[in-house]
């Protein structure tokens, strides 16, 4: 080697951001990408520009994962969600950087956002085995019947992640969907998809089964339309849709009576209630005979 080698600045290695579908990291089947910039307009990366076929594939993956995920014990789902928090904590610096770039926040503001996102996973990890005790229960029907109502997950939920809060907002809408046993197809913030695409790397290493969460980046309106109309999607969270788009999607969703959560003003830094958990739950009531009242001489 030459003795005159100057100390040059090391050239960094860029990450190729990809979609997350069925536990794998494909590029968009369309082969398209779009330019993602930071808050000041500087180029950050080329993100996949998903097509309706990517949306279709994601729904298939989510449906396939639904049986095992909804059938897992609530305790198991809680452990998995807590594991997400643990893995996220370990990648804190990466997400602080990505959130700061995406949302134009100072490092300390971004750090607070990431910390809140980690804690949000912990909050929902604790809900998996408690929501049934809060929204379910025994019903004292007037007759010789055991009667119990329990919540069950709705199924495959399309989630349009909030456009502005690209990470905390995303976690706040995604975690409650999967905590109760649904599976999700997420459309990341259109302008700032990179934290969402990086979250996929955390999910993939956190014992979350493939297909439980699927993450697409691209034009929200383009991807949301086929999801809202899809007959094998059971519900849709419109958090990331503007007023006009939300109305259009709600109309499309009526075709198979999807459960629809309309966009609303949310301060994602506040303590969430249970609204987002219960939005995508069905209630099942089971009747079973008990002994008769004894009028005929025997109660059994």
């Amino acid at each position, binding site marked *: 080697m030459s003795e005159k080698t100057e100390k040059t600045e090391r050239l960094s290695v860029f990450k190729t951001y990809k979609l997350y579908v069925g536990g794998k990291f494909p590029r968009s089947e369309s082969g398209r990408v779009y330019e993602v910039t930071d808050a000041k307009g500087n180029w950050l990366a080329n993100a996949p520009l998903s097509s309706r076929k990517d949306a279709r594939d994601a729904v298939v993956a989510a449906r396939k994962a639904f049986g095992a995920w909804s059938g897992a014990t*609530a*305790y198991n789902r*809680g*452990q998995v969600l*807590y594991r997400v928090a643990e893995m996220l904590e370990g990648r804190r610096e990466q997400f602080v950087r990505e959130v700061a770039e995406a949302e134009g926040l100072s490092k300390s503001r971004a750090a607070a956002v990431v910390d809140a996102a980690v*804690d949000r996973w*912990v*909050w929902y*990890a*604790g*809900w*998996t*085995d*408690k929501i049934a*005790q*809060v929204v379910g229960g025994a019903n004292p029907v007037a007759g*010789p019947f*055991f009667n119990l109502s329990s919540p069950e997950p709705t199924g495959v939920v399309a989630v349009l992640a909030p456009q502005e809060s690209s990470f905390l907002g995303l976690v706040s809408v995604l975690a409650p969907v999967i905590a109760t046993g649904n599976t999700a197809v997420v459309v990341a913030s259109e302008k700032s998809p990179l934290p969402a695409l990086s979250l996929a790397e955390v999910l993939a290493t956190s014992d979350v089964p493939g297909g439980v969460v699927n993450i697409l980046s691209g034009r929200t309106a383009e991807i949301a339309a086929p999801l809202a109309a899809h007959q094998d999607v059971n519900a849709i969270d419109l958090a990331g849709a503007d007023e006009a788009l939300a109305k259009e999607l709600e109309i499309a969703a009526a075709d198979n009576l999807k459960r629809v959560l309309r966009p609303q003003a949310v301060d994602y830094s506040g*303590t969430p*209630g*249970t609204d987002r958990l219960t939005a995508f739950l069905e209630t099942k009531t089971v009747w*079973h*005979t*008990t*002994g*008769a009242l004894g009028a005929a001489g025997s*109660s*059994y």
Partner: protein
Amino acid sequence: MDMEMLSSAFEYAPAPESRSVVDIAPSYGLFIDGEFTEASGGKVFKTVSPSTEEVLSEVAEASEEDVDRAVRAARKAFGKWSALPGSERAKYLFRIARIVQERSRELAVLETLDNGKPIKETRDADLPLVAAHFFYYAGWADKLDHAGFGANPRPLGVAGQVIPWNFPLLMLAWKIAPALATGNTVVLKPAETTPLSALFFADICRQAGLPKGVVNIVTGDGRTGAALVAHPDVDKVAFTGSTAVGKAIARTVAGTRKKLTLELGGKGANIVFDDAPIDQAVEGIVNGIFFNQGQVCCAGSRLLVQESIQDELLDSLKRRLSTLRLGDPLDKNTDIGAINSAEQLARITALAEAGEAEGAERWSPSCELPGAGYWFAPTLFTNVTQAHTIAREEIFGPVLSVLTFRTPDEAVAKANNTQYGLSAGIWSEKGSRILAVAGKLRAGVVWSNTFNKFDPTSPFGGYKESGFGREGGRHGLEAYLDV
């Protein structure tokens, strides 16, 4: 091929769990305000391994003065701890749950050494349940507003907790997890014969970075427990143990502001109908009375079998009992371990003798008992009636009393004919009969087509002299909230 070898029986070679995963110190102090300290009087007692009588360690015996020190430490810690956001308390408890999971093999071996129960049970039942209990209540810490006790329910203050020797670490978890989740601080007294896992738990609190004084462990005998329960600055008393001591505690706290929950004895009826899934019922009967050598407050110690299937069921049961493996609790193939103490063994022996003296028919499978340690063979009594001592008194050992019934009404009447009301089992393939009988049983936990199942989400506790208050589930929060 060695035909001779192949024709011999399938003898399981010894498969001992390694003891080297646990490092027991020769002596332990009291864990007060985040430090291990000696007892003020310098008194100590020995804890032994019930399966060998080997001395495992020497443990400090807390005096009244030490208990006072512990309560004051807990009081001091209470302000900050209860003022923490629930989400922060949650994270401490999640840390504890995770460390318990990480150290579970070490703790399982420790528990088996100190208690005498088989490693199969500590490994597959006690430790997973301990971790799950902390995990469950961790999640409640920041959700108390949603628990049905109104907005912002407040903790009580300092909880004095006294636990038994049959599930030392699990009973600790049942006490400490909900107490901390709701914002209380605790002083816990483990049983005299099984103090070690609580002292190891102190080290887990250290690893988790739990603030000093939030958890204090005072070891000792009944006098230490009595001092804790009587301490004027304790706001809450939680006790698991015998009904006699429970009544004494109820008298002690009478007229004070102390909130009390008691989880006491039982004489659980395991009712087997003629349409039961027989093979699973046999397993459930075995699990009901021989799990943890029958030293379980909710044990199915009375088998109520429908007379029409008595012979068939007893034949199956006896055949099954003959396959139980009694011996070294650290052996992974051991089903029945040692009785926890000489004192307990004497009690079981005396009650079994009373059973014989009163005319019940005693049966045990042929099984060799080890020379050292405290052992009692699995035992079955037939021809037992409601009038026999062994059908009424809690034996707390591997002794099953078999009674018969003719009709569901008779089964219910006999099952309820006891001062206890902790648990019951129902075996039938007919859902309506199960639910009807369950509805009429005066017991806090009713299992159907299973037995001795526990889960942190499921409330546990008794009717009548089996105590009051519930541990586990959303209900378990109430005991530690000012509601």
